[in-house]
């Protein structure tokens, strides 16, 4: 093995260094928009665990992020000092829930799976609306509590949350990368490419896919928790199907299974789109054209035969181009 970091590792490091520079020098009110994009980027990465690794399309990312947000806010309302317990327990619960629902859904074909996960998102929204005394219904609820870390104290401020979002994204990238290059990761990729062949080779498909689905759920939930305590106000609209669809859109633009490109797509395209206010009524058209161009560029890139040709030696070693 070479001691030199791979090209992908260098690219990821460059991406995070560039973001760090942005976080250090932007004024506070401009960081708000970066943090909102980072929240979406974490959800794209979470979906990448499901779709990019496990090959399972999911429209539940919004619901899972909302679950994390509401669970954390409600738990903090009763135990305001217990962030160190609430955050990991909520993330674990989201992991467990996503993994549990993934098992029966694993048998569903792509279209049916998308519908089932869409159902999960709608169930979440309806639960929030129905449990109005607890959740505030569709009006939402103010978040008066803060995340409190032991020895550090309450977390507040744009820059603090910028680095929290960035840290969570970096953790997700590291786990994604490590998982992808591990034995279960390769088994997941095998399930994605040919589920039947993978099963016939003795791979426990439901168990593996529940792992990737669970990880995706946990990351979405953690992003939701940060988003809730950062913004100070939550309502079901913030975690609606639109969030899931946006995550899917940027993952498709960047290419499922690729670590960096979907995240770059989120940060660059969302920044461009949020800077188009000066176009006035023409903005919607410009957004549409930009996203269409990005999708076409993504399609042309994946359709290029040269990029998809895997050297025989590489396949033999279990590597795939990033």
């Amino acid at each position: 093995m070479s001691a030199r970091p791979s090209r992908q590792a260098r690219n990821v490091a460059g991406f995070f260094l560039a973001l760090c520079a942005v976080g250090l020098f932007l004024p506070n009110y401009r960081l708000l928009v970066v943090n909102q994009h980072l929240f979406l980027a974490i959800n794209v990465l979470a979906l990448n665990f499901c779709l990019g690794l496990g090959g399972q399309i999911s429209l539940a990312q919004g619901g899972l992020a909302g679950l994390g947000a509401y669970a954390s806010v409600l738990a903090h309302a009763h135990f305001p000092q217990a962030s160190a317990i609430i955050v990991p327990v909520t993330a674990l619960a989201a992991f467990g829930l996503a993994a549990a629902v993934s098992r029966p859904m694993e048998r569903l074909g792509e279209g049916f799976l998308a519908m089932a996960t869409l159902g999960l998102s709608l169930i979440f929204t309806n639960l929030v609306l129905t449990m109005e005394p607890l959740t505030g219904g569709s009006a939402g609820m103010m978040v008066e509590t803060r995340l409190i870390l032991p020895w550090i104290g309450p977390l507040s401020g744009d820059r603090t949350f910028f680095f929290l979002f960035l840290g969570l994204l970096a953790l997700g990238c590291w786990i994604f990368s490590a998982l992808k290059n591990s034995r279960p990761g390769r088994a997941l990729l095998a399930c994605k490419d040919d589920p039947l062949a993978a099963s016939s080779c003795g791979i426990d498909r439901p168990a593996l896919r529940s792992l990737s689905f669970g990880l995706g759920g946990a990351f979405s939930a953690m992003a939701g928790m940060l988003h809730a305590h950062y913004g100070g106000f939550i309502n079901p609209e913030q975690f609606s199907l639109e969030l899931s669809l946006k995550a899917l859109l940027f993952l498709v633009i960047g290419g499922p299974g690729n670590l960096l490109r979907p995240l770059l797509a989120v940060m660059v395209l969302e920044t461009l789109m949020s800077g188009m206010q000066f176009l006035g009524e023409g903005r919607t058209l410009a957004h549409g054209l930009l996203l269409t161009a990005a999708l076409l560029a993504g399609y042309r890139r994946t359709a290029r035969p040269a990029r998809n040709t895997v050297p025989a030696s590489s396949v033999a070693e279990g590597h795939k181009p990033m």
Partner: protein
Amino acid sequence: MFARILLALTVLALCAGPAAAAPSGDPILVGGLFAESGPAAFVGTPSRLVAEMTVKKINDAGGILGRPIKLVIHDTESNPDVALRMARQLVEAENVLAIIGPTSTGEGLAVKKYTEEKKVPTIMTVGGDPIIAGGNFGPFTWTFKTPQRTSTAVQKIYEHLKAKGVTSVAVMTAKDAFGQDGLAHLKNLAGKYGIEIIAEETFDPKGTDFSAQAFKLQAAGPKAVIIWTIGPAGAIAAKNFAALPGDKPLVVECHGQPGPEFPQLAGPAAEGVIMPATKLMAPDSLPASDPQAAVVRAFIADYDKEGIQAKFPLNTHSGYAYDALILLQAGLQKAGKADQAALRDALEALTNVVGVSGVFTITPEDHNGLSTDSMVMLQITNGAYTVAK
């Protein structure tokens, strides 16, 4: 002869009052948050035009405290996240004294926590009550709103129904924040007016048919059914009730509906439907003694003159941005200086400020300041709005 003409000209010159002094000095910066795109754009875009029209009028009349008003406007895209982003830009980069808007309740709630913490007087044009409800929705020390409270509209409906001898009603409310807010107040206030809610149903405001809910509610036998939603869903529900066989209940729409679209969309089903509205929708019915009569008529004339009527025909929401700026003007004049804390204190103590939506008397407990007197009950007769008898 020449002397007579000179004398006449002198008299004329003396009779003509002094022209309004042109405002001078640094402009007073006021932020404007309007949903100019997205689902709330049908309210937000005309609100922006009305705000610009009103600022021009204020500046032409000498500004406020002798200084011109400068409106710094941003589009919130009907999105709470964007609304918060724009509010922060207004406060932290553009250093506005106060904010007018945003347009929707979700945006208002997203902005409110920040403007409360930063102590920025914010006069919102949102329909929902939560922004000034307190309790779980946080303090509202720096937050005011110009549209009537939901509870005011509910009371207006109940007053009318009680006078008509209607005691049993059914309610059909949208599953969104606006509908839930309406349902809560309809339930809370029914007892006070001796009205019993005998059936209730909810619906998705994006739906295209509510026949099932209409059928169930009619089967319960209410004298009237109150439909609480904004947008086309209200007209669809009215059509669904009109299509039912047998005795039909009186259809009552909420205060979000009055506008040219409702009778157009509902067609013959709109006949006889009643709803509470601002007096803007019934200018001809206002007696000369009504303090709002002159203001409402002048507003409608300006709205037409500026060409807004041609693009966005007048509806019940049209005057909210005007009222927000009139309150701001009254507050600044009362405060005597362009200072945020002084402005807030002055806004909270305003009495009898005549606006388009009503006569505002604000108190620390009531940051809206409008009563049921600010509304009229309208009925649709031959496709046109008339005052319900």
